[in-house]
């Protein structure tokens, strides 16, 4: 692989956004994903190649997060480095020369304001090449249904942290399946398990953002 592209991939994994960014300390004063992407595009490197390298970097950091080798701060910085790249790639998405792998509708269920987990899932899934429609927190079923209607073929992700809002998650899953039986749903949140998720009528559960990516990859092939 092009050395420049490899460096971009590493910047994503390490969370190196740009030259002036002090993080991570060992990459101080080096160029970040921002400068390197600009340079790569100027040199004629295909935007799809850059995107793929970034997705790989994001996947690596996501897997390390799943193994508890890194934590929320590292993931957030990787996402920041990814966002810097996306600014440069946006025109290509608009033109249609690169496409997202699919659409993912995401939100924290009604009555629950917790969004850190949901935001991490958004960042990692975006970083892995999907378009995410983030409805925010405290999202009523009706809003999910409306968005799904307007986003045919989407996959849905539901988050909740409070044990007391799990009932809203269950209701939302049922309402979605009733109206859109083919729509796949993955859920996440503190007291959940795969067993509980499946019992609720969801298609999967993940303990961490990378697990959600694995699910999306799996159903895309199916």
């Amino acid at each position, binding site marked *: 692989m092009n050395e420049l592209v490899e460096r971009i991939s590493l910047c994503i994994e390490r969370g190196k956004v740009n030259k002036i960014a002090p993080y991570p300390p060992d990459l101080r004063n080096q160029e970040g994903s921002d400068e390197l992407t600009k340079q790569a595009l100027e040199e004629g490197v295909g935007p799809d190649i850059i995107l793929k390298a970034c997705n790989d970097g994001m996947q690596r950091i996501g897997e390390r997060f799943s193994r508890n080798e890194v*934590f*929320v701060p590292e993931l957030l910085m990787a996402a920041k480095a990814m966002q810097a790249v996306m600014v440069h790639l946006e025109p290509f998405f608009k033109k249609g020369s690169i496409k997202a792998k699919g659409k993912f509708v995401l939100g924290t269920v009604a*009555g629950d304001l917790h969004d850190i987990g949901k935001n991490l899932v958004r960042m990692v899934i975006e970083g892995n090449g999907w378009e995410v429609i983030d409805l925010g927190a405290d999202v009523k079923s009706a809003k999910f249904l409306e968005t799904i209607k307007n986003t045919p073929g989407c996959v849905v992700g539901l988050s909740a942290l409070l*044990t*007391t809002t799990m009932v809203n998650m269950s209701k939302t899953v049922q309402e979605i399946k009733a109206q859109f039986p083919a729509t796949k749903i993955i859920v996440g949140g503190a007291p959940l398990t795969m067993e509980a998720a499946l019992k609720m009528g969801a298609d999967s559960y993940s303990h961490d953002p990378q697990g959600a990516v694995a699910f999306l990859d799996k159903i895309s092939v199916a």
Partner: protein
Amino acid sequence: MNSLLTALKNKKVLISDGAWGTYLHQRGLQPGECPELWNVTHRSDVFAIAKSYIDAGADMILTNSFGGSPLKLNHFGLLDRTAELNEAAAKISREAAGVEKLVLGSMGPTGAILMMGEVSEQEVYDGFSRQAQALKKGGVDAICVETMSAIDEASIAVRAAKESTGLEVVCTFTFEKTAAGEYRTMMGVSPSEMVQAIKEAGASVIGTNCGNGFDQMIDIVKEIRGIDPLTPILVHANAGKPLYQDGKTVFPETPEMMAAKVQDLINSGANIIGGCCGTTPAHIQRLVHAIRVH
């Protein structure tokens, strides 16, 4: 006003309260409703919960102000009522505790991650200051900054509380056991890293709450004691790890199960012991019995 540190000198182990959220929900708090608003709209319900822990024998109770930071209250459009709701929380607990028992003013996280830059450190500091002052006005003896994950936010909260009220400050973090068997907050902070930072910020009691049952809390306390043999440690443990089963959330540890492990927790170095999610007055009563009736 009572001193937490003096109470600790007199009695080596103090007993704190248990869960509040569970009780508020049992009494009708709906998902999506602001718990702190109940300090005004459902005062007698909140009082009943506070009193139930005093009656169970707790040496101290906290306040229904966990989500009372201006940033959190803002989600409910209640930013302007920050002082009112926190003061009310403190008054209720003070009334339930009487003059002899201790009241700790609870301050939980703002929900914002400082490193994301969405809120400024100044805004977070001012918010915790406002909250702490209102809790003091309502009659708390000390402030309890709890369920923290990030050193920056916790330090700001402790400093804000200390600088604005002069009260004793307790600070506890929430840890999770990693795949490698170590304890870290979601931000990657270890118990050892936590100790230095929050003591520097002004905490006189340190510790851990939520996320874990007694078994894991014992490990965490041991790690803290490994680098700090002296600072009093507070533990608010869950009644085990919750599981969502058949439409209900279940916390598996019974009062008897918790009481059976409490001596080990004390031996590992904990000075103040109470409960977090899933615990009840029955749990606290059983702990009081296990510790006091010996």
